[in-house]
């Protein structure tokens, strides 16, 4: 274990950026905290106290827009020029335990056969430094998904105690980075302090309103059709205004659309996040397979609670970060959906 003062973080980040590693850390701008690229200008607005960034760290492994290739025609031949794969190392600092799990959910999709090369390259360059949740909030329900907010995963775990960061590397990647910055860290054996912090976090988590057990056992792949055809979706989706807020701030929403941009003499093919809330989601030549908002709304929750677990050994593709609970314009969210299925029809 190591330690570093919170005030010395900018120095550590500067060292990393100087040596060719990009650093992304939570930065406050106005009322919002988001992961931003670390520069001298943002050093004074680093914010490790705010629990949740508005956007999730998914942005760094699966950017909202990604250019795939250019296609040009030369001598009646189509020439493809693929975008270069990510080759610059980066660190995402201050990732919360739920968001670390979120990246694992994405890994389970994008790194499985067929492997997504763009994702794989980007993921390989990244080191995730996670941060335990000293002050979990009302909308958190990570515990329902067996995520321990006191024991963050990732490559390096951090516990922020009295303005001092307790640093523990968890993987080879984490160990390598630790070696690289060792001269800025102090050795530490304050295990007791960290254990006390962990206990405190677990007590706080247990006291949260959503920690009192969500009826997730109702969502099993063998009940797929039963859940799909349930009359409750009509009611649940009524207030949905079909925006994509929930899907875009979600750390695990992973669908993308592929489009060709006519750039005059060439075609640029790119992909961008898609949202099942949108009317053109999975639009095909024959038309759309989901014509009503109820069907689109249902898709999101079926994907997270039934389809994904069916394909990934029971792993839900929700990590209980609570972003959708906090941000839905109509106060709809996955917790309301899960709870509504508590009683069988």
């Amino acid at each position, binding site marked *: 274990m190591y330690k570093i003062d919170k005030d010395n973080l900018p120095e550590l980040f500067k060292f990393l950026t100087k040596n060719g590693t990009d650093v992304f850390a939570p930065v406050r701008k106005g*009322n919002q905290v988001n992961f931003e690229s670390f520069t001298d200008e943002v050093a004074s607005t680093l914010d490790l106290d705010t629990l949740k960034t508005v956007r999730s760290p998914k942005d760094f492994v699966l950017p909202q827009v990604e250019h795939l290739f250019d296609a040009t025609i030369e001598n009646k031949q189509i020439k493809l020029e693929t975008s270069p794969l990510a080759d610059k190392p980066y660190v995402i600092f201050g990732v919360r335990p739920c968001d670390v799990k979120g990246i694992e959910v994405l890994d389970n999709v994008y790194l499985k056969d067929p492997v997504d090369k763009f994702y794989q390259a980007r993921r390989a360059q990244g080191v995730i430094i996670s941060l335990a949740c000293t002050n979990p909030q009302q909308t958190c329900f990570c515990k329902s998904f067996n995520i321990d907010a006191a024991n963050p995963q990732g490559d390096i775990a951090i516990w922020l105690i009295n303005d001092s960061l307790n640093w523990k590397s968890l993987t080879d990647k984490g160990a390598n980075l630790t070696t690289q910055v060792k001269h800025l860290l102090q050795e530490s054996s304050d295990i007791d302090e960290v254990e006390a912090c962990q206990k405190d976090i677990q007590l706080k988590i247990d006291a949260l309103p959503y920690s009192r057990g969500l009826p997730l056992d109702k969502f099993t792949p063998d009940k797929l059709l039963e859940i799909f055809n349930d009359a409750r979706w009509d009611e649940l989706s009524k207030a949905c205004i079909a925006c994509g807020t929930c899907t875009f*701030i979600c750390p695990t929403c992973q669908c993308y659309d592929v489009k060709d941009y006519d750039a005059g003499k060439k075609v640029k093919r*790119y992909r*961008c*996040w898609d949202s099942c809330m949108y*009317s053109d989601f999975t639009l095909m030549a024959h038309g759309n397979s989901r014509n009503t908002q109820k069907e689109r709304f249902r898709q999101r929750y079926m994907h997270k609670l039934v389809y994904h677990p069916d394909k990934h050994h029971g792993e839900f593709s929700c990590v209980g970060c609570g972003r959708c609970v*906090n941000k839905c314009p109509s106060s709809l969210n996955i917790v309301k959906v899960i709870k509504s299925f508590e009683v069988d029809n």
Partner: protein
Amino acid sequence: MQELMKAKAQEMLSNGSVTRVLAWKKGDFETNPEPAFFTKHVDDMVYNQYCATNLSNFMVGVEKEEGKTLVFLKPCDTFSFNQLLKENRISRDKAYIIGVGCEGVKVIDEMQETGALLEKCNVCTKIKHMVYDELIGEDVTRRVTDDPLTRFKDIEAIEKMDAGERFAFWQGEFSKCIRCNACRNACPPCGCKKCVFDNDNYDTAQKANVTTFEEQMFHIIRAYHVAGRCTDCGECTRVCPQDIPLHLLNRKFIKDINALYGEFQAGADIETLGPLTDFNIDQDAEPSIVYDRG
């Protein structure tokens, strides 16, 4: 007030004078009620200072459905209702409107009060219901500001910036946009059946924030499209997950319309033609004439 509203809603549902009730339903926290339709019982209905949603917009969704809808509207929501009526998007005879008093809507973060009211509530002048069949608790409504110009203070500050500063200001704000379209979908006058940005024949997707240029296009086109029709209901700013002060764009148009064409409040009634649709060949034929007229 909530109990009076519930009693009235239950009575009208039970005696069949309305088919459904559009109101707010209790959430799992006190602070997150959601817009909801009630067709049998109204036990879960709530009304408190966390009921933010402008329910007028949901009337568009039930316009084609059978029967009458009882809808509860706060004073500012009635302006939107009128505007939708004026644009023939909803019918007056399909709604039974109960105007309810409003003490301002509280801002919630992480299910807790931040201590602030919504921006629009701080500069609220819309204390009277513009359209209703009946009122409940209207006397609790209080005017937050006596100076109707207070709401233009932020606009004046932006007008005072030089072009470079102003560009930097908006670029900073627009670059936060994640193209979730919440502002568009929550906006009552933003009601095209098929939004120009949803046209899949374009090779620039509405969901991709490809360049800052495109983000600026989206918000500015939207602001132009609702100019003269925006009632300043503030839903765009309320729903933005990235906290972009979108109402400033609309309010700039409102301020300019007031200056160029005379005081106008969209949704105040359903008869007055909008300043941008009321065309007078002698006075409004050329922008320069309007400009010179001052």
